[in-house]
């Protein structure tokens, strides 16, 4: 299979997800329970994938440091999805998707805050300025 199939499929699936979520939230399901249900639905399939790949045993060999980071990552990503589902229940998919894609901008803030050694070029700053402009345009649309 052409290796470019995977990123294209990812863009399509992640691009379709907000519309599917908005349709799922359309008949009175609160965003909190909707996010909980969506997250829960993924777990049994993960178990099947892990078993099919023979990686189930790897679960018991994880070091404590990795576990702490993965747990924090899980908490952040679930809260992110909760905020996104709540925003989707209140507003248009196009606006929510554009604004919630401000990830490079916040990455830059994290680099400033936590990774002092990393060099930030003029191009990166210009790119983030363009992203902020795009977000402002989407927010006032």
């Amino acid at each position, binding site marked *: 299979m052409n290796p470019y199939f995977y990123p294209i499929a990812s863009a399509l699936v992640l691009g379709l997800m907000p519309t599917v979520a908005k349709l799922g939230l359309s008949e009175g*399901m609160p965003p*909190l329970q909707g996010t909980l249900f969506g997250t829960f639905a993924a777990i049994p399939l*993960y178990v099947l994938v892990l078993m099919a790949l023979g990686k189930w045993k790897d679960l018991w060999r994880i070091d404590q440091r990795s576990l702490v980071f993965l747990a924090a990552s899980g908490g952040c990503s679930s809260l992110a999805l909760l905020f996104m589902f709540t*925003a989707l229940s209140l507003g*248009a998919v196009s606006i929510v998707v*554009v604004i919630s894609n401000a*990830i*490079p901008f916040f990455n830059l803030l994290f680099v400033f805050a936590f990774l002092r050694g990393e060099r930030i070029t003029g191009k990166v700053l210009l790119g983030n300025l363009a992203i902020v402009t795009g977000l402002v345009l989407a927010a006032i649309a």
Partner: protein
Amino acid sequence: MVVALSLLAALLWAATGVLTKKGTEQVDPVVGSFISTCVGFSALLLITIFASGAEVPRTGANQLALLAAAGVMNYLIGRSLNYVSIKMIGPSRAMPIISAQVLVAPVFALMALRETLTPQLGTGILLVFLWTYILASKS
């Protein structure tokens, strides 16, 4: 409110990226993603119990199926495809293509939800996509 919630989502996803990178240095990405999803589910379960008790909302089977599909798309399919893409063609090629989701999402919203695309929003989408593409292609 929509803008603030969407910005919070972006902030948390940025944090998720940093934390996942640290967490999967010694761990297989699929295993790490599974652990992260289980912890996330537990956190959401606690929040739901504190916020709304054990009350089960009533909704149609179609809506439940759509929410389940959204969860699977976000966690299992989306993440796995991202990992496989990065592994097969490298982040510098994969990430710009994946960032096209910001262009794809409004197309689906226009088709399925009949949302309107204003010139301002269109320009905003193009700016965010263009610079995410350029920044990602240099990563």
